């Protein structure tokens, strides 16, 4: 197991203990913080690779801390107890890498942690080829193959898929995807995104009616699965 230094920030001791236990078992180095003060102190002592940040801290609003943490270059995985998708979008826009909604299951949490750390370790531009099952996306050659058969994508379809592939496993917000692929003028035109995702599914998914590659996060965005 690849290691990594993780700071778990949550005011609930039971959750800190259980999360720490799960992460330690998978070979991560874990430190704990109960509030924003301890978090900031821990960060200045030694910068971790990933901060697991609960947004409901007793002394500060978790959302306020995100830009500050993001500036240090640390990966941020947000824990939220709120049902509302708007808060998740805000956290992502402020610089969080991903989120997990309470109550989460441990498998899900570990998967998110892995994804976040991988993107930390792999510098941008290095991963030029992404493989999921029998599908391969070559970002340099701009080709997509399925069982070694070329699949023809339109430029927009490829641009969207490439964007998701570069951040494989991470959720990308609607606004983020639309801005990168269609430009600032179309940042609110979600139907463009829906239609293009649908076209991609028809070409890439085994069962387009039951998509497993291109996952929807309601009200937030899309992510490309790591292991369907």
């Amino acid at each position, binding site marked *: 197991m690849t290691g990594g230094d993780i700071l778990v920030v949550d005011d609930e001791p039971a959750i800190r203990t259980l999360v720490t236990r799960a992460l330690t078992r998978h070979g991560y180095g874990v430190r704990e913080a109960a509030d924003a003060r301890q978090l900031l102190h821990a960060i200045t002592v030694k910068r971790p690779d990933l901060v697991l940040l609960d947004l409901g801290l007793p002394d500060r609003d978790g959302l306020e801390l995100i830009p500050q943490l993001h500036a240090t270059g640390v990966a941020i995985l947000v824990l939220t107890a709120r049902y509302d998708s708007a808060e998740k979008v805000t956290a992502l826009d402020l610089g969080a890498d991903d989120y997990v909604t309470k109550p*989460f299951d441990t498998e899900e949490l570990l998967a998110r942690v892995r994804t976040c750390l991988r993107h930390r370790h792999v510098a941008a531009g290095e991963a030029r080829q992404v493989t999921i099952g029998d599908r391969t996306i070559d970002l340099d050659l701009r080709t997509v193959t399925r069982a070694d058969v070329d699949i023809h994508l339109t430029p927009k379809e490829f641009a969207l898929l490439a964007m998701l592939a570069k951040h494989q496993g991470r959720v990308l917000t609607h606004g983020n995807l639309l801005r990168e692929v269609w430009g600032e003028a179309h940042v609110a035109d979600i139907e463009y995104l829906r*239609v293009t995702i649908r076209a991609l599914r028809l070409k890439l998914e085994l069962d387009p009616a039951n998509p497993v590659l291109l996952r929807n996060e309601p*009200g937030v965005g899309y992510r490309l699965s790591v292991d369907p």
Partner: protein
Amino acid sequence: MTSREPARPSPDALLRQAALEARGRLKIFLGASPGVGKTYEMLLQGAARLNDGIDTVIGVVETHGRAETEQLVAPFEVIPRSAIAYHGRILSEMDLDAVIARAPALVLVDELAHSNAPDARHPKRWQDIEELRDAGIDVFTTVNIQHIESLTDVVAGFTHVRVRETVPDHVLESAEIEIVDLPPDELIERLKAGKVYIREEAARALHHFFSKSNLSALRELALRRAAQTVDAQMLDHLKAHALGGTYAGSERILVAVSELPGSDALVRTAKRLSDALRAPWTALHVETPRDARLSLADRERLSATLSLAASLGATIVTIPAASVIEGMRDQLAAMHATQVVIGKSQRSWWFELRHGSVVDRLVRASPGLAIHVIPAAGEVRAAKPAVTQPLDWASWGSYAITIAAVAALTLVALLLNPWIGYQSIDLLYLLPVVACASTLGLRPGILAGVLAGLAYNWFFLPPIHTFTIYDPQNVITVAVLIGVGVLVSQLAGRVRAQALLGGRSARENAAIAGFAKTLGALSDEAETAHAICAEVSRILEVDTVLLLRDGRTTRLVAACPPENRLSAIENAAVDWVFDRGEPAGRGTGTLTSSEWQFRPLATALGVLAVLGVARGDSSEPVPADRMLLLMSLIDQAALAHERLRLEAEMRDVASIRERDDLRATLLSSIGHDLRTPLTAIGAAADALAEDGRDAVLVATIRDQAQRLARFFDDLIEITRIEAGALAIRTEPIDLTDAVASAVHDMRIALTGRAIELDVPPNLPLVRADPRLLGHILINLLDNAAKFGAAGSAIRFEGRRVPDGVTLAVIDYGPGLPPGMELRAFDRFHRLKGSDRTGGTGLGLAIVKGFAQAMHLSVSAMNRADASGAHFSILFPAALLIDEAA
């Protein structure tokens, strides 16, 4: 009319027809005189209806002990009359309430013109009949021609018998009329044979009344009146069906009424003219400064005349003006009247010399106008003219001042005489004459003129100390002094009158404005009620009460003076006002034996309160000339009540919303806090699983923890829906996405179940809130998992349908019990015997609430092809997004 527009039914005529069709129909058996056999004919026709199977009863029929009539009554059900004790006598009247309660199709009510006992609900039987018709009951009734309101003058003209019991003409106009005719000779035969019952009071006039010439004249009147009514009904029919009949639409009639006794005759004349010309008519009273000095009797007569006009169908207009002629000119111009009816009163030549004849001036002022001048009735004014100022202390004082002024000037003139000579003294005498005329009024002015003339003559004109005048020029001087006195006092009097009139209007307006301001400042129902009572009492100098109704109980909330209480009959009047929204009590047409007059405070919200007014001396509570002021005050009071009512409703709504908001916030924070321990439970279960413990047990812990979280979400959401605090953010959604996410979220609860996804990828996108739609799908999935047979599949089916897109969640369970399809979405409704599945009954209520919030519709039914439930969401076409875009 040369217009090429197709003939269109007149809306008024159509409305009249519609009203006629909804109300009970009235048939009047009209006779020229007693004894022609009206009752007999009515009973015959009633019996025919009875034979036809129509539910016919007798409300009131006087048989007068005649056997042939009594025989006719026998087959009918007779509604027992109610007995009313009055002044030691027992009067029996038709039991109106009993007839209405019996609700027959047709009721026979004899004697339309009958006056009821004083304590009856309505003073007149024709009003009872109107109420029966309002209740949808057809009525047969009888009446003699001399009882028709507009004909009483005519009848009195040749019979010399004035009928007290009258029926307004409008009653006839809405009725079918059947003439019961008997030639006069036969009637006289019957009379001689003793076959006619004659009421005692008529017996005295009998000999004269039943002369052949009278009977012939009455017969002619009856026939003509019936023909006129048929004519009018035909015209209405023509207008309603736009058959294009001709009618004189351009005529408009104005009748000027005053407090003089002849005004009733004017009103009746105008009514007849209006009927003949088919023209609308208006009764005008010009409120001149003289009105302020009318006696109580005059006011009451004026008020009665105006109500008579109203009951005959006139529009009533009262306008203030400095003189009758000015007021009439304004009104003539305003309504473009073509015909005017005015009275020529037997005023003295002196009065007309001073005031000018209204008739003459009207002729000069309005060329082209047809003017009907009706000579005053024989009743000459008994009282002194209303203009006479009572000779009270102030008047005697002004005569004294006049005498003193002339005397003082005479003294001064005597002193000055040696220097200025007697020829100039006459100018000096103008001083007291002008002064007295302009400040003290007409009579002191004339007195000053006469005294000045006499004094000048006595003291200064040769021969001195005699009233003899040698020089004719000096006669003129005396005449001029008197003339100046008259003229100046007239001018000054007019100026004062204008000021008085203006002052009164201004005072009334100020009173209304002050009243509105007072009420506007109050925010409490009881305070407002007290203020209304106190202010109306003060402004109109009457006793007042104000009543409110909560549900069915009426309560007196304020009174001025505070000890005012109402009797049983008055409470009945109040109930009537609340129920009908029409005034009742003294001075109205309903329950007139009450001392109080009750008026509704009504707005668009209905009758909000009832205001009662009365005078301590039991006179008419509100004289006609104050009625407008009262109505203005009532309007203000009604508005104040409406404002209070609306404010109270706003407060209620606000407090409910606040409470719901609080509940939602509380639940939201509880739900939030609950997620932390649930997360810990889930994580602990995962830790146990990693340690190799019982996987099924761990999965159960995890599943139940998530269910608990969903349950709290449901509670929070239902509270938000009910508080109206549900925020909706729609975006274009691919149903494939929505279904896949819901299935993914529910993957633990759905372990071991096959999910059949049949949502074609070519369905249009829909516009919805992703979070709410996700919640709907999760709840439907949860429901299908609970009620579907264990291990059975759950199917999603998306379909394009003509009116949108449907998304169905289908299970393979037992299905819904019969009749439960509609109740499935009720809050806390759970299917019988479903306890062990642990549902809260909230899930489907939330589905419905969210769907409604997003304008989707949901339905539940049983599968047609197999056992199982079929829940379907319809996304209407308006929410679909065309993919071509």
